[in-house]
Every structure is written in C-alpha cells, then in structure tokens.
C-alpha cells in the first residue's frame, strides 16, 4: 500500500516548506536589476551554492523514482549511471569545457553554437532544447502529481496545478537566483528524507549482508549484486547491455552529452562569480553525486525483497517507479513521513524549476532576442522571461501526461536524451577540438545525429532490430546519433569553407580566454584547484568500481 495516513504534523511540515520556498522567491526579487540578474543570477554566486544547485537540478523524478526503479530492475549495475556516466562527465565539464563556456561569456549553450558555427545550427538547437526541457519538466510534474495522489489521496491534476503554481511563482518573482537558492535548500531536504529512510530500511532487512542474502534469492540473483559481472559481449546481465553499449553509449555519449551540453546544468555553473567557481561547480557536485547511488539503489533493492510481487505492476505499490514511495509508506511514522513527502515534493519541484529556468533563458536570449527583438531594455527582457516562464510551465503541464505512457521513467528520459543530447555532444566536441569544422558541417551533423537517434528508436520499437532491453536500445540510439553526427560533421566540413580563426577566439581548444585571470588568494588554495578536485573524484570512483566489480 502506498496510501499514507498523514497527520496534522505531516501537513504542517509540507506547508512550512511551501511558505519558505515562496519567501525565497520574494527575497530574490529584491535583488533583480538587470536581465543578467534574472537569467544568470548576475554571475555572482559562490561555488558551493552553484555546485549544490548543480546536483539538485538533476535530483528530480529521474533520480529519485527512476534510479530506484533501475536499482530494483537491474540491481547494482545501476551504479554505472553514476560512476561510469555522471562523475567522469562532470570532471570533464569542470576541467576541460568550462573555460570555453565561462571564458567566452556566452549566456547559454545554444549561444556557444551560434558563435562557433552559424545561426541555423543555433536555431535548430535552441528549439530542440526548448522542447526537451519542457518534456523533462513535464516528467517531474507528472511524477509529483502521481506520488501525491497515491500517497495523500489528492487528485493528480490538483497536485500538478499546486506544484506548477508554486514553481511558477518563485521563478517569475526571483528568476534564476530564486531557482538556485531553492535548489540548494531542496538538496538538504532530500537528504533529510532519504538518509533516514535508507537507514531504517537497511536495519529492517538485516543490514547490507542481510540485503545481499535476500537479493541472491530474488529474481535478480547474484548478478544483481555486481556492477560488471556478465557485461562481456554475449554475457547475461540484468541491464541487457554489453560493456560496449554501457561504456560508450551510456558512459561516453549519453552522460557526457547530458552533463556537458544540457543547459539546465551548465546554467548553474555560468551563474558562478568567477572562472574558478564556475570550474569548481561540477567538481563540487561530483563528490555528493558519487554517494547518491546508496540513497536510491538500496531502496530499490529493499523494495524488491520486502514488497510482495514487486515489479509485477499489479498495483501501484508493486511498480518499479514507486520503490521509494512504497518504502516511505512502509517504514516512516508521522513526523518523518512529512519530511519524506516534503523531500519528494522538493525533488520534483527542483526538476521542474531547473528545466523551466533554462527554458526561459534560452527562449528569451536565443530565440526572442536573437531573432525577434534586439536591443530592448533589460526590463523588457525580464518581462518577456516571465511570460516565457508561464508558457513553459503551461506546456510542462501538458507534457506531464506524455510521461504517463512509460513504465520506467528512466527509460523515457534516456530516450529523450538520446534524441537531444547525444548528437549535440558530438557537435560540441568536434567544434571545440577541431578548428577546421565549418558552420555548415556543424549544422548538417547535428540534424543527421538527431535523425539517427530517431531512426534507431523507430526500428527498435517496430521490432525491425532486436535489442535486449529498452534501456540498451537508448544506449545504442545514442551511439548511432553520436557516430552519425561526427561522420556527417567531418565530411561536410571538408567540403565547405571554415570560419576565419580570429572568429573562434575563446571558443576552441588552445584559444581559451579568461583562464589567465589572476586568482584570488582563497582560490589559489590547493583544495580549490580544479585538477586536484577532479582527480580526487576519479580516484574514488575507480576504487568503488573495483569494490563492486
């Protein structure tokens, strides 16, 4: 059963949270002076704030429901999303790519494409990004509505409208500062919800050892306890993917594509107060991120062994996506129950807000300002940004119902990423490291890559090609998109005219700008050095991979 018996205390905890969230919106409104304040927090935030917002922006439905679902469905192999995927990508973003983003002073990811390639590439990406963000924010909104309806008995539409209205209020009031401050707050509430839940669940199943024993007897069996076992070509493993699909598809293409080119993430780093803080944003985020699997995979595994028929989907409580809500209902008494439900609400609202705040920035700067109205005063763009926010939330509500058709939210989202992020990553990497790549090469590659991901999905869903699981199909879709994008970009580039090198200043490898700015005394401390931070995260991840081999 997912339905909880929420007391006055639990409702009070939820209500206090809503009040504080709105209060942050009103507080942040006082700080607004220019359009840059609204869309990029005036590039004024310290690294620890942008770093925590960087994780929280991603710690939405995707993570809390989707990763727990993966934990129950695929077992410990789910850690690949973190240790092969997210962490190396975040380190790469901080060390290699951030100088080009922050140093070139672009205000968005599509803007980098405009300056490196041309307007058609920019327009194509700005539109497809705007579309992707509202789809993903719709996933979060739907998850929120569903969980509140299952747990509290609210109607799905009431829950969606309340949550959408609150997010709308704090973003239209305070812009990105308000979104980011709330994300930092949300991060701590989510931790306060998940850490006690995992602790109680583990005590109940007899600790890690007890859980492992019970997993061996479950359908997952021994492979469910290992990250790499059975991942050889032709081997049998719960993920249904071999190591090529995992390392290249998930690790390299999907994760690097997501973390390094998704503006909803990169925007957090662009709001940092200097180059050092911008580079440290994803690196500071990497450390907590390493340990988040413990908070989402363990509940998935516990649900698998404690909930009867878990995974059969015969009732909401046995659906993979609902592992964490099922455990909350099972283990937490009034009080902690309120914190846990607030944690879920916080996570999903962060997922909506992050995407909507990226959406309004891209729509305002990259579509409205670039193609419709240049040179208006800042107040005009802030006003337009507020309207874009309202429209973005409105579309998110509609897209929420598209997410309904997918049994594992993660599969749906990875599908979206294989369409939008995988080709983009190829266009970025080639553009940054190969000065010869031409404007039209970039455009042709991006279009071809997106088409490639679309075709792979079509062929798979019609049964023309066989792949072991929907997740593995998305990995392969990403690989096809990436390779096709790269090949087309290179071929078309060789046949067309490159940009004069002078126009590439600040945008390509070897021509970075802003890295030679004098660091402040505090930023020169060894533990603030991006390379030291990045290397530390990689070492921890390698050790963990060996432990869980």
């Amino acid at each position: 059963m997912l339905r909880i018996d929420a007391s006055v205390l639990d409702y009070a905890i939820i209500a206090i949270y809503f009040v504080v969230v709105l209060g942050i919106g009103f507080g942040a409104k006082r700080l607004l002076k220019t359009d840059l304040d609204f869309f990029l927090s005036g590039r004024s935030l310290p690294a620890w704030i942008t770093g925590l917002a960087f994780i929280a922006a991603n710690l939405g439905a995707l993570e809390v429901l989707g990763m727990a679902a993966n934990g129950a469905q695929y077992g410990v192999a789910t850690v690949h999303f973190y240790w092969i995927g997210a962490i190396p990508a975040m380190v790469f973003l901080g060390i290699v790519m951030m100088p080009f983003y922050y140093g070139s002073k672009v205000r968005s990811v599509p803007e980098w494409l405009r300056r490196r390639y041309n307007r058609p590439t920019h327009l194509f990406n700005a539109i497809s990004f705007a579309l992707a963000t509202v789809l993903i924010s719709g996933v979060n909104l739907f998850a929120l509505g569903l969980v509140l309806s299952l747990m509290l008995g609210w109607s799905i539409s009431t829950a969606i409208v309340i949550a959408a209205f609150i997010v709308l209020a704090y973003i239209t009031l305070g812009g990105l500062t308000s979104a980011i401050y709330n994300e930092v707050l949300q991060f701590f509430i989510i931790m306060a919800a998940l850490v006690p839940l995992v602790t109680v669940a583990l005590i109940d199943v007899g600790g890690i050892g007890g859980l492992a024993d019970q997993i061996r007897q479950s359908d997952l069996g021994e492979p469910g306890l290992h990250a790499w076992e059975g991942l050889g070509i032709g081997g049998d493993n719960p993920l249904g993917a071999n190591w090529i699909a995992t390392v290249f598809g998930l690790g390299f293409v999907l994760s690097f594509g997501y973390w390094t080119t998704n503006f909803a993430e990169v925007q957090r780093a662009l709001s940092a107060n200097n180059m050092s803080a911008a580079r440290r944003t994803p690196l500071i985020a990497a450390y907590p991120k390493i340990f988040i699997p413990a908070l989402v995979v363990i509940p998935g595994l516990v649900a698998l062994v404690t909930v009867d028929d878990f995974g059969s989907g015969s009732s909401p409580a046995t659906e993979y996506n609902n592992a964490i809500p099922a455990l909350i209902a099972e283990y937490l008494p009034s009080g902690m129950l309120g914190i846990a439900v607030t944690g879920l609400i916080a996570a999903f609202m962060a997922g909506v807000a992050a995407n909507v705040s990226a959406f309004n920035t891209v729509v305002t700067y990259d579509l409205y300002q670039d193609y419709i109205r240049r040179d208006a005063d800042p107040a005009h763009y802030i006003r337009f940004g507020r309207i874009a926010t309202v429209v973005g939330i409105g579309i998110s509500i509609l897209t929420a119902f598209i997410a309904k058709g997918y049994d594992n939210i993660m599969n749906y989202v990875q599908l979206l990423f294989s369409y939008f992020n995988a080709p983009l990553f190829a266009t970025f990497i080639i553009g940054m490291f190969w000065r010869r790549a031409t404007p039209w090469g970039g455009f042709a590659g991006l279009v071809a890559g997106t088409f490639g991901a679309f075709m792979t999905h079509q062929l798979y869903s019609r049964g023309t090609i066989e792949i072991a699981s929907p997740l593995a199909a998305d990995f392969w879709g990403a690989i096809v998109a990436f390779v096709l994008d790269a090949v087309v970009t290179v071929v078309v580039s060789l046949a067309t005219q490159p940009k004069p090198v002078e126009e590439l200043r600040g945008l390509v490898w070897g021509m970075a700008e802003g890295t030679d700015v004098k660091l402040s005394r505090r930023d020169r401390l060894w533990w603030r050095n991006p390379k030291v931070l990045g290397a530390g995260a990689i070492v921890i991840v390698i050790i963990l991979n060996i432990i869980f081999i």
Partner: protein
Amino acid sequence: MAEETTEFSEDQVEKAASLLDIRKIIGGLLGVYGLLLLGAGLFASEADKEKAAGVNINLWVSLALLLASVLFIAWGFTRPLVDELEEGDEGFTADEPGTRAQP
C-alpha cells in the same frame, strides 16, 4: 545588451551584501523541522517505533537536524557573504604576481 566584465564592480559587491543568505534560511528551516520531530520523537508511540524497524527515527533525525541547523546558522554568521566577495575582489585589484606558489 551590456558587455559584462569578470571584475567585480562596486555594484556587485554592494548587491552581494544585501543577498539573502541561503545558509541562514537552510539553518532556520532545518531547525524548525528538528523541533517538530523532537516533539514527535519524545512522544513516540510503540506503534511508531515498531513501524520503523524498532528505531525511534523521529528522535534521531531531530537531533541530526538540530545539529545541522546550528552549524549552518553559525557558518552564516561567522563568514558573511560580503566578506567572501571582498576577499575574491582582492585577487583582481592587488598588483601582486598572478599565480604565486601554493601556500
């Protein structure tokens, strides 16, 4: 659009001074939650404990939340935001060599 610079202007420092300090907000909210859970923990019924694998989870979590709350608020008061920014500012204005050896 106005061209921005990496240096901090007077305006930015002044703005930082008036920034909402998110540390105090986090500390405040965790503190309120800690007190509410402390109440629930002190008056926990046997059924509550039994549900949570025999642990008085509200009590334990309330102690952790109160501790976190105190740490955040203390951090907020000992290092005001404006200090952090002014110190960051120093690196841009002082005419000492750019990257000197690590201390």
